[in-house]
């Protein structure tokens, strides 16, 4: 297997920001000096104990970490095979894993003397997390959000506004997450002196993919310790959903060199991964290309034009994927699969009924894959799945999909 060639999977990226052939710094000259400065500042912060002390203090008292590792007993019995644990990152303040990363970037922004924070958001979870931390520190915050998403995620738009953030509906292109990212980059290139771009996933130009991974790795570090405490061994399989891939990278990274731990990333299969391209499965249905500062797998046509993704989950609705996932895919260290909207909706309901947990649609994709594989695995096989977000934001979408009339509540 290709992975035997590597002594460690945890050394990337290289000095050019590459994971194998993926990653890099494909940005305009105006942004290049900013990215080099960010890299230098992050390298400094990374080895500074006071930086991490501040992070841990806020993780503990503001976010509510560590998040529990929970044995899903009824779900395990229901599926009748592998023993299923859920890493409960949906219990974080703001309801998802996104805040783990935002805290790190905002503390860094403050150290760099930046006073204006910009972010892109799809479902709104990263936008809400950024708005939240900016409110806490009294920073000006502007969030770019596709006009289509503004419409379908109205509660999160209102949350951001309550938190004092300016939400800018993006109508350029097709008004989706990738267009929101384009507009955030346009803002950054215009306001270079005072502005910090807080990217929400493990994508973008180096150092973002590595930096966001490092901040999210708290998920995997905790899971490892908690699993040792609960079972006195590591899990056999770890599973997470992937849009850009930040919750997955956060869970996976600390396990990369534990070669007996199987790693599975679950992409959004939308209406099915086929030639109609109505999905967001960049790895299973795309090919390598360059967008938003990095080389990675992208949904694109024969001419290199970027295609729109399709998924019931706004949080997975992105035509790319973090470059480290692209690399892990190519070298075979992690396996990537896709789950359709229909399968994710089934998992969503099962989780509500069996565990009393309303999951977000994103981790519902991961759970749907757990449902597929758990029954055929032995009872001593341990699965750890990242429950990366709660489903409150998705109830209207799910109600519509299930033909439930929310009437005046909507």
């Amino acid at each position, binding site marked *: 297997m290709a992975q035997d060639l590597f002594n460690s999977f945890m050394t990337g990226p290289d000095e*050019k920001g590459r994971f194998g052939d993926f990653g890099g710094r*494909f940005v305009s*000259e*105006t942004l290049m*000096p900013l990215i080099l400065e960010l890299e230098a500042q992050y390298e400094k912060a990374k080895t500074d104990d006071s930086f991490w002390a501040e992070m841990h203090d806020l993780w503990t008292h503001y976010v509510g970490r560590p998040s529990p590792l929970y044995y899903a007993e009824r779900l395990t019995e229901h599926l009748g095979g592998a023993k299923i644990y859920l890493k409960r990152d949906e219990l974080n303040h703001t309801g998802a894993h996104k805040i783990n990363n935002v805290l790190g970037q905002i503390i860094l922004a403050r150290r760099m003397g930046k006073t204006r924070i910009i972010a892109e958001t799809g479902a709104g979870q990263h936008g809400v997390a950024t708005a939240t931390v900016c409110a806490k520190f009294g920073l000006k915050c502007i969030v770019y959000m596709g006009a289509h998403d503004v419409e379908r995620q109205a509660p999160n738009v209102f949350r951001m506004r309550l938190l004092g953030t300016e939400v800018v509906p993006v109508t350029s292109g097709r008004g989706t997450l990738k267009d929101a990212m384009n507009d955030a980059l346009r803002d950054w*290139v215009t306001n270079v002196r005072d502005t910090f771009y807080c990217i929400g996933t493990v994508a973008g130009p180096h150092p973002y993919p590595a930096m966001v991974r490092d901040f999210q790795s708290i998920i995997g570090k905790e899971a490892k310790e908690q699993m040792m405490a609960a079972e006195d061994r590591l899990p056999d399989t770890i599973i997470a959903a992937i849009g850009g891939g930040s919750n997955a990278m956060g869970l996976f990274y600390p396990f990369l060199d534990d070669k007996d731990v199987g790693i599975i990333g679950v992409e959004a299969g939308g209406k099915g991964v086929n030639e109609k391209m109505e999905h967001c499965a960049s790895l299973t249905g795309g090919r390598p290309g*360059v967008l938003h500062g990095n080389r990675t797998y992208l949904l694109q046509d024969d001419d*290199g*034009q970027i295609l729109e993704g399709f998924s019931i989950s706004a949080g997975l609705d992105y035509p790319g994927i973090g470059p480290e996932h692209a690399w892990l895919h190519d070298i075979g260290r992690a396996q990537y699969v896709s789950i359709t909207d229909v399968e994710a909706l089934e998992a969503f309901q099962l989780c509500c009924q069996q565990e009393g947990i309303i999951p977000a649609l994103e981790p519902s994709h991961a759970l749907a894959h757990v449902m597929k594989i758990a029954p055929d695995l032995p009872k001593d096989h341990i699965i750890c799945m990242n429950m990366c977000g709660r489903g409150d934001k998705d109830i209207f979408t799910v109600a519509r999909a299930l033909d439930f009339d929310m009437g005046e509540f909507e």
Partner: protein
Amino acid sequence: MSRIDAKFAELRAAGKKAFVAYVMAGDTDYDTGFEVMQGLPAAGVDIIELGMPFTDPMADGSTIQLAGQRALEGGMTLEMTLQYARDFRKSDDTTPIVMMGYYNPIYSRGVDAFLTDAKEAGIDGLIVVDLPPEEDDELCIPAQAAGINFIRLATPTTDDKRLPTVLQNTSGFVYYVSMTGITGTADVQSDEVAPEVARIKAATNLPVIVGFGIKTPADAKAVASVSDGAVVGSAIVAKIGAGEPVPDVLGFVGELADGAHSD
């Protein structure tokens, strides 16, 4: 001598500054876009920047983005953009053509295949916005080896320390971006541009051309007076997008060219 070098030699001999015009290939449709392109030299354009449509033009404002969308909706492809150059060369073998856009369509076609085709089509230079010097191995160095100039953008954030990095491997000319920002938005401030152009010229023998925010013949004149020439894109593309007849568009281009040349 490349067409770009020959053009600058000719301009120097005549004591003239360069006027560079940007148009989007395939905007508003294949034939209109080509008709505009073909008319540019007679309108006074010294160098043509031929925009390659891309779905996600992150350094461009809405004018260029919409032009790209119109072109793509009309079925424009990179191959068809190359066909513009081939057809243009049937009647004009001296006006330099610089293709400008983003890396992914080129990467998707394959760098070697693209460079071979571009050279054969009569392309003289490339401006690829999302390829900074840090990614020179991708396209810049292979392009130079294939005999195509790789024209770099220098910006207000390119400080003295970084400038040599940006100038290294640059050929043809240097494109100075007059502001931090995207195309087609704020107005150029030629008094701010002058010291920056002087700073770059102190570090290179290449001509320094200035773009971004140049909208009127007066802007073109002011910028040309402090540099080696001016680029206008969005102001021309806006007229094409508004559906103005090609002769009117070219008339406007002529006024801009006169502005740049009047210095």
